[in-house]
């Protein structure tokens, strides 16, 4: 009969109308400023720079290698490496700008970074009245502590921390062995005269934090990872381990 389909459709809407008064599952609206939905851990919008320890600029993991600047598809990253008074690179960025009005949140900078220095933020309330003022983020605005990273991406940060601690342990062991060899071999003080400008900033800038963190994370890399991926730890490790494989190598090298 003509009109049956129409009435059936009206029945559906009527059911939903009545149901919305009884079933709380149907009330899906989040009253935004007061209530907030929990963001998934993988959520990303714009990049930020991670620093270790307490000193924001000195503790930056970034070594101004410019890999992210080259790989960034919309080219929103701008880096000038810092140099000391003799003109040698200090492996720190002097300028690190991200134009987040250009950034397309693709996360490629995070994937290509061999030092785990740049990560994706979850801060989304960043509307600005001025077009140019706070949408071009400088080094100071981008630097955020590792604890913040652990807070927004807990599982990912645990993996990264374990990996970095492992790399640092290896590097320390290597340096210690080298120092002992040098001490045994000849003179008193200087283990590797060429090294100090390059490597010491990292250990010296983050001595308290890493000293405190090192035993903890280095002692429990096994339990730290499995809770994240209970079923397939080897698979996960080999999968995510692959793109970041240089990480374990580079800081030690």
């Amino acid at each position: 009969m003509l009109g049956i389909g129409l009435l059936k459709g009206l029945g559906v809407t009527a059911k939903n109308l009545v149901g919305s008064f009884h079933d709380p599952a149907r009330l899906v609206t989040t009253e935004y400023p007061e209530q907030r939905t929990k963001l998934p851990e993988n959520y990303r919008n714009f990049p930020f720079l991670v620093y270790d320890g307490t000193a924001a600029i000195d503790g930056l993991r970034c070594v101004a290698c410019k890999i992210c600047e080259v790989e960034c598809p919309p080219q929103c990253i701008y880096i000038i490496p810092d140099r000391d008074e003799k003109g040698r690179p200090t492996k720190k960025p002097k300028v690190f700008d991200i134009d987040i009005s250009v950034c397309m949140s693709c996360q490629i900078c995070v994937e290509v970074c061999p030092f785990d220095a740049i990560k994706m933020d979850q801060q989304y309330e960043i509307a600005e009245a001025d077009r140019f003022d706070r949408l071009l983020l400088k080094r100071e605005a981008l630097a955020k502590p590792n604890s913040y990273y652990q807070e927004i991406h807990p599982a990912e940060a645990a993996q990264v921390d374990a990996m970095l601690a492992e790399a640092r342990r290896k590097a320390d062991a290597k340096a210690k062995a080298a120092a002992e060899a040098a001490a045994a071999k000849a003179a008193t003080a200087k283990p590797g005269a060429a090294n100090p400008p390059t490597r010491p900033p990292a250990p010296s800038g983050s001595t308290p934090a890493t000293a405190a963190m090192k035993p903890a994370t280095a002692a429990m890399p096994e339990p730290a990872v499995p809770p994240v991926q209970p079923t397939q730890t080897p698979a996960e490790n080999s999968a995510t381990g692959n793109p970041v494989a240089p990480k374990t190598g580079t800081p030690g090298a």
Partner: protein
Amino acid sequence: MTNSPIVALHGTPAVAGGNAPSEICHSPLAPGGAHVRSVRDEFHGDLLEVSMGPHHPSTHGVFRMIATLDGETIVKLKPVFGYLHRNHEKIGENTTYLGSMPYTDRLDYLCSMTNNWAYALAVEKLAGQPVPERTEYLRVILAELTRLLNHTCLAGFLLQDTGASGTPLMYAFREREKILDLFEALSGSRMMCNYQRFGGCRVDASPEWLEAAKRLADGYNEFLDEYEALITGNEILMARTQGVGVMPRQLAVSAGITGPMLRAAGVDYDIRKVDGYGVYPRFNFRVPLGDHGDTYDRYMIRVLEMRESIEILRQAFAQLPSGPIMDPKAKIRGFKPKPGEAYGRIEGPKGEIGFYLISDGGANPYRYRVRPPSFINLTVLEDMCLGHSIADAVIILGSIDIVLGEVDR
């Protein structure tokens, strides 16, 4: 006839003198073309040129239709596109292979997962890069979720175009939101997923995610039942869509139409079956075909495809193996395939989405070409609209399922 309104309208004297109506109705396949002619012979009414768009709610973006009307009947329709052109292919030639991946999200921004897959497939063919099995399954799962998402949106928008403002669209968007939540939880972004990589994918799906996706797939039939009860049997929808915008089989094939539009015209051509890319040959699913090729068929095809997608999803969840998600030899940085060319195509929700790449051995492709399904499906718009009223043109356009990001590139 020398001072025919057509001449005044278009300023082309060449039309004058000849048999003006037949000049206008140039498509022999236009349904109802004869009807147009008889009306004009009788009344000699003025033709009216109406420009719909580029800013019009029914054009699904910035798209313009210049319709020449005889009364309410369309005698000529000229689609104008390119308002959203942003040099996609040229940008692709100037960025690295990986750098183009996030740009493919922005082609058809409802289906970024399938765009990613098509592009990754092309590059993997070019570089001879194998893909781990788990990733192949994840790709199928995500592609089928994308198909659900896209067809759900289409069903909502089509109803919006017929004038059912709001209700069906909101029902559809309620479900779409659930799929977008899944995408966000997995890839970090609702629409710009940027998930696939050459030789794998970016992050593994956690067991909780798979559980949630499984729940969604299991509950989706329920939604489709509700949605179909809401509109499929609706007499107004039938009256508006049945027999409207008929696309003959022959025209569909010769114009290179792909996807649900082609199958609605009754041509059995599904790249999932024809190419058997990925792990699709392992799944048991049917390809729905239409009988009449009209707008109603195009709507129904999508609903039926969604039900098949749910079947594929169930099988994929059951068969999903564990293992790595990234090939150990795959390169993220410094990716330079050997010189050569490759064309990777998949059955996207809208049709055949393909990427054609030529490599000269460098870090960027020498040539990067997209075969966009929406754009090619849009080329038959005039043939389907001739002889119908302007209100029908809106529905016909809606049933083609275009996304202007992909049409204009």
